[in-house]
């Protein structure tokens, strides 16, 4: 069988390297805290680490200088078709963003939230009182998004595998690494073909007079109406990038958040309470608790940017440094969210924080496209589980979150199944 | 300054100038039919069977042709009038574009209609941009009153007759009586002072300040009163311009530039030189400002509301509220019983020489207001030492309260009601009048900071139960306070600020 059909979800899971890297990353918070104080703008050759809240925001806000480095890897995934994630701001960026905003609608969000909860509940029902959280969330997340976009699971192969491996390549891989690149290309080609087939199949269904209301259906309807930006290749690229960029994230952050809550029994109980009282207010409360938990172990320690021209960062302050053109700038969002200069009592768990205290989805031009979907669905994916009585860690090391590199690997929980 | 208490009847005439009137010659006409009476201290004989007092508004003085400098030297409240929009808000009459419920529907009927001050808002310099704020609204009434003439007589018939004489004399010179109110007092025990009951049935006119003057201008039984009496002592300058006031200086008043040598009018009138403004004559000396507010009283609504509150309280607390009657609540709304005796924790204050005691303090005997409620009308109208946070600051708080006293000269108008619980459709009320030399520090302060202050004496969301907006009123009882809901029983019909000139100033105005 080719690796595109089965295999580890992440390359990090193979060998000892991932475990080592995970252990190293554990040290990041205290190191970052030190850097924030003694060297807020740290230079390591042509690599710059930005740790303070103000400066991280300045990097994101100065998007004309600090460009996204996603293009080379993205080209591997999309077969060199452009996608806005890799573009600088401009008419093309805005046009492509608009084509997506026209088919991914705010009015879908309540339904998506309900759907996330339904899918999660169904899986828990079949779990017999023991659940591995990472694969559980992964299943829910890919299922949810595939349905929403209107693309069915590939056979052979799986979205979870393809999406996760391409995500891993996009954000932690290098197009210069020939083996990795070849592997990614294989996943990508399979993925592209699968979507092409789905588009063709959908066209036949529509011709037969059935038109499901999902993202693919909306794209094709716009294509038929002659709207620009919806050629088959553009539709394929967009759907591909969305599935690669979106659903791999919940299986990372949600287990991390639950791990943080399990370390804080009072807040774990508060989350359970909110999950059980099934009202809009309590949904909001649960989201707030999960969002705050994520701050203590966010998706990524930060985001990379490339300086397109020379620029003085933090100008007018004593820590100002001139970043030369071509430097790679690492905007440490995890550190920024712990910066006591802007975030009140950052070590204190407080779900009532303001939205601007959180940088989970980045900031500015390239702020996560899926943030609204995440806002509506993340907490709903774990809500049915949290509502279960007797939810607790599994015995032994299985009940502690394990990571491989930056990725959550496994966390087993048990609950009373008699309900 | 006299209230002419021996003359129990009278008329309040709102005089309005015709468009052609200029100068002060109409005052000479008035002098012939209704000579303005000099103030006679109490106990120094009477003025006869008739007495008259005259007060002028800023708009009236301006139309009579008083010169610009003099007009500008009057105090700001008087120059702006009571209906200036910010002042209306502070007095609890109007908020933004809406009249409060304590004003008759549609707004007051009469005022001096003082013109807006010349505004610099339209002037723009280089770099200036509009800031988007609205221009000042000019709030006006249908009737313009330029002068208030108060006629006091021994009988109502005489008042009517005199009023007709005055009206007939003034009409040819362009002055009309725009509004007339028949005033009266009806003391039950004249020998104990002129304590009359207002329309709701409570003794009124009690607790006046006792003026004193370090310069000896106040005498009692021919002995100068140069020191304040313990509770009610207030410097004369707070009521009469030119004497030492609460700020320890001669109370400021209007001035008149010394005229050219060929004009001996002011000298003839008797105006003297101003003590600090070189080259000016003292137009204010021995004058005062008088605040007039015509307050309509709805007697039936008052007592029906008291009944409803008593019913509700007894219904909610059948076992322990048998003492709560309409009278019980009404006494607490006022703070005195109907005969004018102050409520205290043990009942009422015993009379002094048969008359209500007015020299009481609150802090020592009724600090927590279990007797006289903290929000009652009398306690709000003059808190004396009640607002002291501790024993040590009592004297300074009493002294502070006495810097905001007014000399009330109001009289009731209309007829007495037969059955206080039955509305007879008649208009009746109180023509509130008070003298003060610093309207902002005295009348306006009392109205805003004491009577209508929604957080007076640590109350919350309550105003004066008689004059304020409808709402709760707390009555302390042990162990738990009761709260009654008061409605609007008193509404403003009209009013304004007037200048009460001394006789020399009045003679000067007649020469304009």
């Amino acid at each position, binding site marked *: 069988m080719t690796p595109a059909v089965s295999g580890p979800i992440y390359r990090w899971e193979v060998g000892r390297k991932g475990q080592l890297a995970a252990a190293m990353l554990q040290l990041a918070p205290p190191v970052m805290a030190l850097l924030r104080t003694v060297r807020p703008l740290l230079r390591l050759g042509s690599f710059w680490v930005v740790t303070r809240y103000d400066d991280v925001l300045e990097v994101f806000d100065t998007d004309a200088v600090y460009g996204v480095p996603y293009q080379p890897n993205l080209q591997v995934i999309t077969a060199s078709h452009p996608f806005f994630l890799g573009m600088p701001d401009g008419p093309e960026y805005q046009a492509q963003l608009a084509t997506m905003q026209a088919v991914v609608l705010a009015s879908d969000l309540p339904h998506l939230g309900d759907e996330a909860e339904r899918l999660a509940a169904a899986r828990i029902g079949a779990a017999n009182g023991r659940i591995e959280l990472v694969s559980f969330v992964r299943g829910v997340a890919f299922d949810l998004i595939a349905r929403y976009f209107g693309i069915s699971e590939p056979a052979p192969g799986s979205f979870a595998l393809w999406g996760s491996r391409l995500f891993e390549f996009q954000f932690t891989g290098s197009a210069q690494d020939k083996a990795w690149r070849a592997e990614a290309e294989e996943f990508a080609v399979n993925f592209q073909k699968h979507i092409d087939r789905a588009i063709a199949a959908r066209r036949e269904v529509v011709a037969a007079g059935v038109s499901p209301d999902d993202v693919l259906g909306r794209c094709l309807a716009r294509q038929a109406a002659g709207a620009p930006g919806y050629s088959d290749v553009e539709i394929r690229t967009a759907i591909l990038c969305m599935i690669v960029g979106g659903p791999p994230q919940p299986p990372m952050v949600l287990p991390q958040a639950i791990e943080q809550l399990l370390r804080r029994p009072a807040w774990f109980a508060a989350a359970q309470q909110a999950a059980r009282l099934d009202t809009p207010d309590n949904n909001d409360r649960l989201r707030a608790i999960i969002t705050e938990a994520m701050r203590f172990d966010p998706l990524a320690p930060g985001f990379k940017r490339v300086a397109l021209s020379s620029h003085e960062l933090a100008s007018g302050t004593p820590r100002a440094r001139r970043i030369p053109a071509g430097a790679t700038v690492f905007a440490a969002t995890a550190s920024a969210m712990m910066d006591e200069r802007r975030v009140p009592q950052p070590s204190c768990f407080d779900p009532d924080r303001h939205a601007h205290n959180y940088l989970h989805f980045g900031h500015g031009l390239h702020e996560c496209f899926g943030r609204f979907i995440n806002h509506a669905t993340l907490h709903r994916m774990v809500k049915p589980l949290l509502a279960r009585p007797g939810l607790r860690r599994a015995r032994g090391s299985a009940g502690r979150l394990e990571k491989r590199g930056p990725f959550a690997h496994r966390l087993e929980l048990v609950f009373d199944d008699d309900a | 300054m006299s209230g002419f208490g021996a003359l129990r009847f009278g008329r309040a005439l709102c005089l309005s100038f015709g468009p052609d009137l200029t100068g002060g010659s109409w005052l000479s006409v008035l002098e012939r039919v209704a000579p303005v009476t000099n103030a006679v201290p109490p106990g120094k004989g009477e003025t006869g069977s008739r007495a008259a007092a005259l007060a002028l508004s800023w708009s009236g003085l301006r139309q009579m042709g008083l010169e610009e400098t003099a007009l500008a030297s009057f105090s700001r409240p008087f120059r702006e009038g009571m209906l200036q929009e910010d002042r209306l808000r502070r007095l609890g009459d109007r908020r933004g574009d809406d009249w409060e419920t304590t004003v008759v529907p549609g707004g007051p009927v009469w005022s001096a209609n003082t013109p807006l001050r010349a505004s610099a808002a339209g002037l723009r310099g280089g770099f200036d941009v509009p800031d988007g704020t609205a221009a000042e609204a000019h709030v006006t009434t249908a009737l313009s009153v330029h002068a208030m003439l108060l006629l006091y007589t021994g009988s109502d018939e005489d008042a009517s007759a005199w009023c007709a004489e005055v009206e007939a004399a003034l009409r040819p010179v362009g002055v009309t009586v725009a509004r007339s109110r028949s005033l009266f007092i009806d003391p039950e025990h004249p020998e104990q002072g002129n304590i009359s009951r207002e329309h709701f049935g409570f003794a009124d006119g009690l607790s006046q300040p006792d003026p004193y003057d370090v310069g000896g201008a106040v005498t009692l039984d021919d002995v100068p009163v140069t020191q304040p009496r313990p509770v009610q002592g207030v410097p004369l300058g707070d009521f009469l311009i030119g004497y030492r006031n609460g700020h320890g200086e001669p109370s400021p008043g209007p001035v008149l530039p010394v005229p050219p040598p060929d004009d001996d009018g002011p000298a003839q009138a008797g105006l003297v030189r101003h003590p600090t403004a070189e080259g000016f004559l003292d137009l204010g000396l021995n004058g005062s400002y008088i605040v007039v507010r015509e307050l309509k009283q709805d007697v039936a609504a008052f007592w029906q509301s008291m009944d409803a509150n008593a019913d509700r309280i007894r219904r909610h607390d059948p076992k322990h509220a048998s003492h709560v009657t309409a009278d019980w609540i009404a006494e607490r709304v006022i703070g005195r019983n109907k005969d004018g005796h102050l409520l205290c924790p043990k009942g009422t204050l015993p009379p002094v020489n048969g008359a209500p005691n007015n020299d009481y303090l609150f802090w020592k005997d009724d600090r927590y207001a279990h007797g006289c409620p903290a929000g009652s009308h009398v306690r709000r109208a003059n808190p004396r030492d009640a607002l002291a946070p501790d024993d040590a600051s009592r004297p*300074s708080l009493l002294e502070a309260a006495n810097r905001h006293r007014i000399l009330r000269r109001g009289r009731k108008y209309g007829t007495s009601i037969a059955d206080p619980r039955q509305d007879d459709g008649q208009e009746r009320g109180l023509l509130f009048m008070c003298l003060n030399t610093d309207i902002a520090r005295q009348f306006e302060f009392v109205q805003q900071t004491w009577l209508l202050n929604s957080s007076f004496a640590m109350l919350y969301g309550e105003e004066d139960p008689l004059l304020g907006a409808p709402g709760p009123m707390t009555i302390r009882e042990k162990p738990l306070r009761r709260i009654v809901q008061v409605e609007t029983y008193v509404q403003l019909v009209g009013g304004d600020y007037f200048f009460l000139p001394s006789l020399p100033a009045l003679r000067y105005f007649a020469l304009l």
Partner: protein
Amino acid sequence: MKQVTLCVPLEVKPESCSRLTAAIEDLKRQEDKSADPNSPNFWRLRERIPTLHFMSISVFPAHDYDPVFILEANFDGPEGAFWNDLTAVVGEELRVMIRCCKRPSDGTGALYDAVTALASKRSVAPYFEARTQRPSVFHHGNRGLACQQILRDHSVFLETVEELDRRAPQLYRGEAPAKVHADLRTALLPNHRWLDDQAPERISPAERITDWAALTLFVLLLLAVAAAPGLLLAGLGVARDHLVAMALASVVATAAALLFWVRHLEVRDSSHDRPRQDERMLREMIRREDWITQNHMGSIVLIKPGVLRTVIVRAGHRGLHLALRALRASRAGYLGSMRTVHFAHWAFLNNHSRLLFFSNFDHSWDSYLDDFIEKAHGGLTLAWGCGVGFPTTRYLVGEGAEHGRQFKAWALASRTVSRFWYSAYPDLTVDQIERNHRIANGLRNKSLDDSAAEAWMLDL
């Protein structure tokens, strides 16, 4: 939580002053009444800056200087989080205002350039931080109560009234005080779970000790300075065996000399009894006052020159500040015998040549000034007597504000329009906040005996 009081003064470009004023008015309109008529006034600030007690933005014109823009705020610390919250809500509006102000000549010029550059997205928070001016003296009326605590206490008060008079008027009549307390607690607990928690300490013992230590140290320092000449003489051999006596004599002599010097200056000081009042400005001030229970004032005066004045002003302000932190009455919220002051805030501007005063108070400006004149004239004269044109004083604390009319006229002329002004609890007086807090604290007790409950019920 410690309440922070600070201001940010920025010099205005005179050509942009009118534009700045309009921008402040725009901001006020935008925040005061939102598009949704059902939302309360200033709801964005209320919701998104829950630590903010009070804030004002105003422009002070002056005869002697270009106008100065001042943003002044009272909030529960820390400062960085406050500025971040504020700029998240009105950052762009504040940037427009900064652009109307001059580029500072000190080290913050580069930061000014960064935040005012065309299309700059740089947060203005660091600029405000860099330009922050600390108060020389401040006083808080409800020290130690966080904004959210004040609001929570008030909601308990409102619900208590509702419960006693509407929901269950029969229930509480004729019962023993202890039972009334217990029943009320039971009724309120479901909506106010926090009543089960212990009340947080308003002023921690550490803070208290620090306050007293600072005041003691200050007094000792003053005495040491006064004793120094005598000790110096002793050191030079004069009465070497009587050190203590020399020190005491020196203190007395120094005090006498200083008083003589002060009086010498005072009789030569000019006062400004009838300052020119800009009618348009006055009207703009008055039209914004007396809409709600609280009012706000801001004033700037020039400080009298001279060596002795400079020393007295700085030492006096320091001493006053330390006394206001340490003394029992002011800790309980009293400024003199006044308890209507939510905060009073003095700060020096322009190298100590101008004195800024801000205050939020209950009731009208006239009554506030009358209170000062009638109840706190001594302290006020000490704090403000250094102002150019202040009514004639006598030995620093005498007369001065007792010249009521002159003092009011002088204070009025130094004021400016409070164009943007926000209070998180506009209808609560200092006294009411304390009353609410007493009620809530009473309810935090699981039970009270009859006499304690009866005393507690006086506040209901």
